[in-house]
């Protein structure tokens, strides 16, 4: 490594945070999503396994610990998804409007995080 550049760009400071959340979201998606997709995406709607009883599922998801855990799972997954999709657009489709793409991707993730918070707080 040679000398550090004299002028540091401000974006460097938030990059490690995005990267860390990206990695965390990647692990969460890899560990938690397969079973959730299999159960709630296929097995329950198609009746392979009888869908959980309403009262039981309601009790599980309205528990405040569950809500907190779900928020902690959703937000990093959304950041992960946005970060990866951003680079898919750069590299895969060779798009050049980089600032706009970054703004749209992270903006969508933030909107998703806000929606998650609203849903989790408004469950009765």
């Amino acid at each position, binding site marked *: 490594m040679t000398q550090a550049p004299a002028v540091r760009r401000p974006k460097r400071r938030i990059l490690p945070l995005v990267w860390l959340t990206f990695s965390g979201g990647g*692990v969460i998606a890899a560990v938690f*999503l*397969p079973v959730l997709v299999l159960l709630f995406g296929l097995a329950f*709607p198609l009746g392979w396994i009888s869908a959980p009883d309403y009262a039981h599922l309601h009790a599980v*998801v309205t528990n405040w610990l569950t809500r907190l855990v779900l928020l902690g799972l959703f937000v990093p997954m959304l950041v992960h998804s946005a970060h990866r999709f951003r680079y898919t657009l750069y590299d895969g489709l060779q798009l050049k409007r980089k600032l706009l793409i970054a703004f749209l991707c992270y903006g969508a993730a933030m909107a998703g995080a806000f929606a*998650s918070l609203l849903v989790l707080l408004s469950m009765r």
Partner: protein
Amino acid sequence: MSEQLLYRRRVSTWWWTRKRTYFVFVMRELSSIFIAWFVVFLLRLLSAVGDSRSAYDHFLDWASSPLVVALNVLTLVFITLHAVTWFSLTPQAMAVQVRGRAVPGSVIIAAQYVGLAIVSAFIFWLVTR
């Protein structure tokens, strides 16, 4: 430093279809769309459960419609691709040491599959008991 003008050939939009490894790379990157989709799907489920019993039944009806099922089959394929590739890349992204010795990559990969199994079993137990 003088400005250099270099000729750069534009890379084709379809560059990733020419080689299998490139194709798998782009498919892996596309898993991001399906992760976002399934978070939205889970939010719809939670909002239905938080609402009422009939909203939950309505959600299950919607989730069993052909389009949503097809989307979730694709989601399962892409999430599996994400999980497998993510686990196998971890040893390269993260050097784990125990008592000054590097933990072999295969152990790191295996540990993640154990984590996956435990989390899956726990969630299965929690929602179906």
